[in-house]
C-alpha cells in the first residue's frame, strides 16, 4: 500500500500532508506515532466516566493531531465531538462517539496495513 492509497482509504488529504512533511518516510513515522497516542482511549474512558472536561481535552488533542496529519474525515468527526464537549453535553457526545470510533478504526487499520510492508 502506498502512502497515497492509504490517505485515499482513510479519507485524508495526501497532497496536504506531502506539502507539510515532504517525504513519505516521515509520513510513515508520524503515522506510527499516531497509533501510539492515547487520546482516543482517554476520550472513550472519560465519556463513559462522565468526565466532560477531560473528555474535551482528549477530543481536542485528537482533533489537533488529525489536523496535523491531514486525516480529514477523522478530523471532522473529532472536531464535532470536541465542540459538543466544550459545551459539556455528554449525552450527545456519547451518540457521536460511534462515528468517531468508526473513523478512528479505519485510520488505525489503514496505518497498520501501511506499516506492515
Amino acid at each position, binding site marked *: 500500500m502506498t502512502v497515497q492509497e492509504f490517505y485515499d482509504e482513510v479519507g485524508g488529504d495526501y497532497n496536504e500532508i506531502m506539502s507539510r512533511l515532504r517525504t513519505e518516510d516521515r509520513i510513515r513515522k508520524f503515522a506510527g506515532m499516531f497509533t501510539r497516542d492515547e487520546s482516543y482511549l482517554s476520550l472513550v474512558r472519560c465519556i463513559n466516566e462522565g468526565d466532560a472536561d477531560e473528555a474535551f481535552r482528549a477530543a481536542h*488533542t485528537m482533533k489537533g493531531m488529525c489536523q496535523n496529519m491531514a486525516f480529514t474525515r477523522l478530523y471532522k468527526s473529532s472536531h464535532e465531538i470536541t465542540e459538543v464537549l466544550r459545551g459539556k453535553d455528554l449525552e450527545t457526545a456519547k451518540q457521536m462517539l460511534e462515528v468517531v470510533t468508526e473513523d478512528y478504526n479505519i485510520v488505525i487499520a489503514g496505518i497498520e496495513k501501511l506499516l506492515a510492508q
Partner: protein
Amino acid sequence: MEAMEKNTILIADDAEINREMLKFIFDEQYSIIEARDGEEAISCIMENSDKICLTFLDLLMPKKSGLDVLRFMNEADYIDFIPVIMITGEATDETDEKAYEYGASDIIYKPFAPNVVMRRAKNIMELFEHRIYLEQKLEKRTRQLRESREKLERSNEFLINALSSVVEFRSLESGEHIQRIKYFTRLLLKHIMEMYPGYGITEEQAALIVNASALHDIGKIAIPDSILLKPGRLSEDEFAEMKKHTMYGCELLEKFKQDDNEFYHYCYDICRYHHERHDGNGYPDNLKGDEIPIWAQVVAIVDVYDALVSKRVYKDPFAAEEAARMIIDGECGEFSPEVLDCFVNAKQELFTMTEDEFSFADVMVR
C-alpha cells in the same frame, strides 16, 4: 552580537505527533527540549531560561494550560527575553486576545506549513535578539551617562564648597558653618516637601538649593577686615555696611549670569534674600510674605539658627532648645507660618544634628 549562545527551542504539547511536527522543522539548526504538559514546560523554562531562544506552547495541555504557562512567564518576567509562539487548533478572539495580553509574540493555527512556521519563528527570534541587544546597549550608555553626571556633580560640589569657604577662611572660621547650613537646609527642605507639596519642590531642585545655600554669604568677601573681623559688636554704620553683603553677593554672581540656569537663580535669590523677613522688616529689599522665594526663607531661618548655636566673638552660643524657642517666639524676626511649621517639625532632628553630626570646633553648645 555578544554572548549569543541561546540555541534551544522548547516545544510544549501533550501530543507527541504535534511535538514532532515542530521538532523536525527545527532540529537541524536548534537543540530541542520537549515538555508534555504545562507543569513540565514551566520547569523546563526555569532550568533552561539562559539557553531558550523560543518557546512553542500548545494552548490546551494537561495540568497547566498554555495560557497558564504564559501567565507564569509573564509574572516571573521570562517573557521579556524568551519569545513565545502559541499553537492552537482554532482561533477564538477571547484566547487570542489573552495570549497577546500575556505577551505571546505570535499565534499559529494548526495545521501549519513548516516553512511558514520556520520563517515566523526566525523573524521573532531575530526581533528579540535585536531588542535585547539594543536594551543592553542602552543600559550601558545610560550607566555611562549617569557616571559622568555623578562625576560632574561631585566636581560642582567641590568647587562650590571651595568657593564658599573662602569667606569663612577669611573670617577665621573653621568652614563648618557652610556644612551645617547645607545639612540644615536639606533637612528643612525635606519637611517642606512633605508638609507643603504645594511649593512643588522636587528632589532635583532640593539638591540644587542645598548647593546654592553654601553660597549665601559669598558677598562677605567684599566686606573690609575692619568690620568682618571686628572683635566686638558693630556700630550702626558698620552694621549698615555689613548688611550690604547681600547685594555684594548678587553683584558678584551677576558677572556670570546664566539666565536659563535654575541653579543661578537659586544662588542669586539666596544671596540676596536670606536676610528678608516675613513681615517686611528684613533687608535689603524689605520683601514681604510670598515675595521672598521659599528657598531664601529656608536658608534665612537655618542661618539664624546656626548663628544662635554658634559662638561669636561678641556672644556665647545658645543651647539648641533655647535657640529654637527664640526663633519660634519671633525674637529673631518673623518667619512665615509654613516655614516655622516645618522648623518646629524638624526641631528634634535639628537638635540631634547639632549635637552629633558636626564637630563644633568653633562652638560649644550647652
